[in-house]
């Protein structure tokens, strides 16, 4: 360990630690634009200059490695002056359009001016004019006037995706980020460019002008769109400025986790938030033969009915004519409850799985297995098998289906026909589909982001998560439904 001092306080750090990281350990955040922990120090923005005793010039916190006995000062008059100078340089040609900039509220430049700037501008020349609103692919827009040329985007595309679509063109004050000739950003990680841009130079058409950063409430969870288990943060607005008591999700961003996803997520996961918002089921639907469809929010009644249907089937010795379709989107806790109820207690043999169809792994984060908890299901002793296209549900008295992934494996009419042929079908689903009208009872459920629980990812790592956004009113997480069902059936879930 190496002994150093930061702002007069002693600290021990491992050899090779940079000044910036050492300061961070003491809770001192040194301002930076170009530095990003995923990359080697770039040293170009000059925002992180600090004073090191015995050295004539200020030094970069991002790249300077600590030495034994080093005394670092992070906010001396010289350092404060240097930060002001860098801000004055960056803001000289900056359009100062925070009121219409999506990044406002989470912009390094804006925050640093507030914290380290606060000088009176002395710039009275004509600002450089540059192109704005340049489409660079996948709905991203580049604004060169806002750019501080930190090159994080360029480095991301070279070092993470290896696609290298962006580069720096021209030089001096004319230097600008540009897209290679005939290129467009098409990779599956484009959204990260918006996250790592420290200013509003790269914005996302999907998010643009929809809300303000300070309205967003952030909830951390695990991405369910493949088996990687990337850690994500859901950004949603609740209440003001939305009418009533609505909530709306505006975007998903990565949460740092060096063991799983580093600093990134793929676009497939990121833009999955539309699934959370669109076509949600919020009422229980009951269809009894010969009676008009009935909508209710009386969960107690419906779950009592489900328990009665199960009991009746079992007591009549017709367990073999009861089938349950589970999926790898269910949490470990939910799957454990299913196991306890349907396998251990009721002894059902007709337990099937309908998972999302596998896709292609992209070699970075996205895996071929598009269910988040396949490993969890396996660990609980399930051997996920699709129902035979022809046999089981047709000869079933009671069919309980979790989720809609059956639709990925057989035509909608066929799936609907199964539902009709079964004596009684319960569908537990979060979003509306063609299967709604085929089921006898539709129970609106929560999506993973709206649940607490855990998933076991492709590497066997089990990650717990809390509810990141509230579920729509009228829906319940499967865990809750299963708990109530267990209570009705007198099953101890443990």
């Amino acid at each position, binding site marked *: 360990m190496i002994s150093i001092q930061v702002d007069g306080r002693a600290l021990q750090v491992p050899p090779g630690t940079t000044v910036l990281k050492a300061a961070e350990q003491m809770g001192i955040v040194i301002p930076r634009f170009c530095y990003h922990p995923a990359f080697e*120090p*770039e*040293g*170009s*923005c*000059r*925002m992180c*200059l600090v004073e090191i005793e015995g050295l*004539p*010039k*200020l030094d*970069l916190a991002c*790249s300077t490695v600590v030495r034994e006995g080093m005394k670092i000062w992070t906010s001396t008059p010289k350092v404060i002056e*240097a930060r002001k*100078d*860098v801000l*004055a*340089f*960056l803001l*000289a*040609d900056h359009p100062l359009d925070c009121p219409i900039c999506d990044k406002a509220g989470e912009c390094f430049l804006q925050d640093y001016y507030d914290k380290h700037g606060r000088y009176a501008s*002395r*710039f*009275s*020349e*004509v600002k*450089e004019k540059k192109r704005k609103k340049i489409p660079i692919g996948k709905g991203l827009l580049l604004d060169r006037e806002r750019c*501080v*040329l930190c090159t994080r985007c360029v480095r991301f595309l070279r070092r993470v995706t290896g696609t290298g679509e962006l*580069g*720096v063109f*021209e*030089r*001096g*004050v*004319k*230097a600008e980020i540009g897209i290679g000739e005939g290129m467009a950003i098409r990779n599956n990680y484009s959204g990260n460019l918006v996250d790592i841009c420290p200013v509003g130079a790269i914005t996302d058409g999907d998010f643009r002008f929809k809300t303000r950063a300070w309205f967003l409430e952030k909830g951390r969870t695990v991405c369910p769109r493949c088996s990687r288990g990337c850690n994500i943060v859901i950004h949603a607005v609740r209440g003001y400025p939305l009418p009533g008591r609505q909530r709306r999700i505006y975007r998903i961003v990565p949460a740092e986790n060096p063991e799983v996803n580093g600093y990134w997520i793929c676009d497939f996961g990121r833009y999955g938030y539309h699934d959370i918002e669109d076509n949600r089921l919020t009422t229980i639907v009951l269809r009894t033969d010969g009676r008009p469809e009935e909508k209710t929010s009386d969960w107690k009644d419906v779950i009592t009915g489900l328990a009665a249907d199960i009991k009746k089937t079992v007591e009549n010795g017709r367990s073999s004519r009861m089938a349950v379709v589970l999926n790898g989107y269910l949490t470990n806790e939910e799957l454990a409850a299913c196991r306890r109820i349907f396998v251990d207690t009721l002894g059902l043999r007709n337990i099937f799985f309908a998972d999302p169809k596998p896709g292609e792994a992209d070699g970075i984060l996205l895996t071929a297995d598009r269910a988040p908890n396949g490993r969890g299901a396996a660990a609980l002793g399930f051997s996920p098998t699709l129902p035979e296209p022809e046999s089981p549900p047709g000869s079933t008295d009671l069919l309980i289906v979790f989720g809609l992934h059956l639709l990925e494996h057989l035509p909608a009419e066929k799936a609907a026909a199964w539902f009709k042929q079964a004596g009684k079908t319960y569908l537990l689903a979060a979003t509306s589909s063609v299967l709604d009208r085929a089921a006898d009872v539709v129970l609106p459920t929560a999506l993973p982001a709206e649940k607490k629980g855990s998933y076991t990812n492709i590497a066997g790592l089990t990650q717990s998560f809390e509810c990141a956004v509230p579920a729509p009113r009228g829906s319940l997480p499967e865990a809750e439904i299963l708990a109530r069902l267990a209570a009705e059936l007198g099953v101890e879930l443990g």
Partner: protein
Amino acid sequence: MTGIPATLIPTGEDSFRLEAYLGRGGYEAARTVLLTKKPQEVMEEVKKANLRGRGGAGFPAGSKWAFVPQAGDLPKYLCVNADEGEPGTFKDRVIMTRDPHLLLEGIVLASYAVGIHTAFIYIRAEYESIARRLEAAIDEAREKGFLGAGIFGSGFDLEVLVHRGAGSYICGEETALLESIEGKRGWPRLKPPFPASVGLFRRPTVINNVETIANVPLIFRYGAEWFAGRGLPRDGGTRLFGVSGAVQKPGLYELPVGTPLRTIIYDWAGGPAAGQGIKAVVPGGLSAPFLTPGELDIPMDYESLARARSMLGSAGIIVIGDRTPIIDILRIVARFYAHESCGQCTPCRIGTTWISKIADRIGAGGGAPDDLDLIRHLAQGMKGKTLCPMGDAAALPVLSIVEKFGKELGETISRGAERR
């Protein structure tokens, strides 16, 4: 001086040809060294000669070579910096034009000392005819066995390649030069690591100026003591002083290190141009802080100029006559650095242009009373705070102009204000 004539720049129409060079004793030093001396001895000899870098920073050449790790079989490289972008500097072109084989012999010696088998000459695009001359010289030398495999039958191999730049000032900065050779955008690298350990293609690399390398054969032809004796105790040899601007006889003068600036301007360059006095002198390329006529007795060596808060730099002397408004000089200086800033780091990218815009505004009669203070502030914001030395290169001359010629600039600003 010891009676042996100055030999960096030969005269005569055909001085560049191999036969002419051989006639001057060319390649004898390299032959003797390769056949009789160990690399370590070569390095020691260069250290003894007190040869300091001629590119601008003045780093002792022998020590620079010694930084390169000797162990390992992986390649090391020599890059000869022939970018010569510093305004007021025109010495390397003359060496390469008149005596390309002197440079090649120096390359052989330096490469042998460090254990290098591939050397690059990085030459600016504007020197196309010189680049062709170098390539022709390399062909001649290869044919004679002075380059290529087993030079002089010694078992030492060396290939020399000419690499053309694309006309950017910053590519004269050693790490930007490396990027450029690698085919990348010419942006300086963050140091450390230094090129001696991680250089061209991430391998240990020596980067020397043309004049530095061209001096090496002289050390072995005439001896380290002779070489050291031509200059000052810690700064051996001669310098090629390029004198341009408002003088009677602008040109390139090879004189001992430490020759007073006044001697160079008055005794060699014939004094100021007709009908003019001297207003200011740039002693070592445009990046060197300006001197006033009262500072002309300064000896032209690294340490004396550093004491005067200027620098010897590339020894390109620009004399500014007293009929030239200093605002014109400030505008030209500021515009040059704004144009040549690579754009990588914040203070230089924006500071140079900002200063240039202010200088242009003052020049156009739109100056404001606190403009000089603002220029000083912006230059201070660049000085010592940029990624590469160009921040200082841009800030220092500007600071010296504002400091030493503030009165005239103030008058220019007031005159502009009166006319408005």
